[in-house]
């Protein structure tokens, strides 16, 4: 079980989503990807994409305007 941090702080759409898609592709089932974002739109579209693709998703509010999207790859 691997765990990977992806730093997308300061990045605007669509960079966080595209980076997250690419990073998740390299991981195996059961691995965890943590995407750090501070862009409110990415806070919506990254979890939306991950849930639709069938992965487990959690959002943590780290600070004001800063979130970590925790994605557990399912398949």
């Amino acid at each position, binding site marked *: 079980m691997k765990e990977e941090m992806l730093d997308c702080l300061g990045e*605007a759409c669509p960079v966080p989503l595209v980076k997250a898609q690419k990073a998740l592709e390299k991981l195996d089932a059961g691995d965890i990807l943590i995407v750090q974002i501070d862009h*409110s739109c990415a806070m*919506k579209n990254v979890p*939306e994409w991950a849930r639709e693709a069938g992965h487990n998703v959690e959002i943590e509010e780290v600070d*004001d305007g800063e979130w970590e999207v925790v994605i557990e790859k399912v398949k």
Partner: protein
Amino acid sequence: MSDQTTTPAGGSTGSIRRSSRATSRKPKKSQIPKGISALLVIIAIGIALMILVSERVSFFWFTGIAFGFILQRARFCFTAAMRDPYLTGGTSLSKAVLTAFAVTSIGFWAIKYGAFTRGLPIPGQGFIAPISLATAVGAFLFGIGMVIAGGCASGTLMRVGEGFQMQLISIFFFVVGSLLGARHFGWWKLNVMLCGRAVFLPDVLGWFGAIVVQLLVIALLWIAADKYAKRKGADSAH
């Protein structure tokens, strides 16, 4: 809409087990008092504009506030609506933009048709622009620019409000680009735009035909966007 995701407001319950966690997590400071102060300043500016300048300017200020607030609250993004189908395969914003087109069209149609039947001047006809090569080139350049800059005109303004330094630069160069475009506008007008024609759909299809055809086209695009996303989703699962 079934594809909407609701996001938990605070820290999660943590059913995904993760080992690393940001160690020095400082307690969050609520920005709500600042938000309330911002609202008071916004109202004060609106009242000041009403007294010192004009009611009209004050009205524009408050509708701007409403547009900015709605765009930010809903994370509404015209750029993503155009870009995501190609880039990420998502179309939920594209569908939302199409919905906005449909609802606004009905409202505008009613206002325009109402004015027409009562023999009044039809409002907003200045937005029926001539179609020429300039429309195509302008829209194409705009499309490239908004994806690279990470936001369209309204989106860039909204992101400036959200605290993006990058968008502060892009709004400045948006202004510079506008000035260049205005400088060359005479040439485009003379050589390109004059060949174009403005088409107001009710002139071609009739008042009822125009709104019916428009809503049908929007509905078909909406269905296409929906099917496209589902197909893309199915593809990426394998």
